[in-house]
């Protein structure tokens, strides 16, 4: 009987350890999902505005690129279409982790009522090939002309 109880105790201990390990894994996953990662969108033409709210976050646009940071790194056609509606036709939409495919980009622009991207191939040719990583923004504001800023 004592042997049976001892073996049962060991089983219980192993079970508790397994549950604790699972909880740790789940917590790590949740932390990762909360991480803020860079997002970038490439447009067919110069952005209609410098700042746009889409997909629940604020995007900054300069020329044909828009960037932002958001949690998780997931990309959705809905988020893309909101951006396209605000700044114009999107030819590429991605985060540090994921990106939309060509069919999803076409759907994104269709939902936004933006004209379809005419020359994604030309846009691709203009940028170097190979794997890409989007980083956070480097920012510097100087004090020229003197007196303009404190």
């Amino acid at each position, binding site marked *: 009987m004592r042997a049976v109880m001892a073996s049962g105790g060991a089983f219980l201990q192993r079970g508790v350890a397994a549950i604790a390990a699972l909880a740790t894994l789940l917590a790590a996953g949740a932390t*990762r999902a909360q991480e803020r990662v*860079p997002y*970038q969108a490439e447009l067919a033409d110069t952005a209609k505005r410098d700042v746009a709210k889409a997909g629940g976050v604020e995007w*900054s646009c*300069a*020329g044909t*690129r828009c*960037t932002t940071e958001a949690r998780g790194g997931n990309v959705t056609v809905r988020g893309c279409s909101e951006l396209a509606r605000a700044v114009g036709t999107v030819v590429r939409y991605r985060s*540090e*982790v994921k990106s939309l495919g060509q069919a999803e980009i076409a759907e994104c622009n269709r939902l936004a009522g933006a004209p379809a991207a005419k020359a994604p191939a030309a846009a691709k040719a203009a*940028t*170097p*090939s*190979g*794997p*890409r*990583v*989007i*980083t*956070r*923004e*480097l*920012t*510097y*504001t*100087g*004090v*020229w*002309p003197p007196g*303009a*800023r*404190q």
Partner: protein
Amino acid sequence: MRLAAAALLALFAGAATAQELNLDVPVRVADVHPSVAVGSVSCSLFADPDGPVNNLGYLGAGTKWFQLKDGAFAGTVTVPVKVSAQSVPRAYKCGLFLIFKEGGRTLTAAAARVSDPDAPEYRAALRRAERSAFAGEVRGTIGR
């Protein structure tokens, strides 16, 4: 003839043992002194996730220049970094540099240092505006 064949072989071998990773770095620079006409972004890749902090697992680096117009630049600078085909980059570090003329010389300095009154590279004309957002260096991990 034999030499040319060896050179060609070496060239192809080199192409097969290198890979290029492009880092898209958003850059926003404004109100910069007229002595600065050009800026640059330099990026390094590391095999160790903590490499950007302790330089462990350094794989290679690349630099891309950009032209300032009226003391400003806003856009994305794509920095290509070549590393060997076998290496697996796990982290990156990118820094903003200002290239400026001084006493007939052309100098390059990290924006973080040239704008910091406590750094030896400090230039008063290039100090950063108080209460302005500043990020002279960005770091991150690659792949999950």
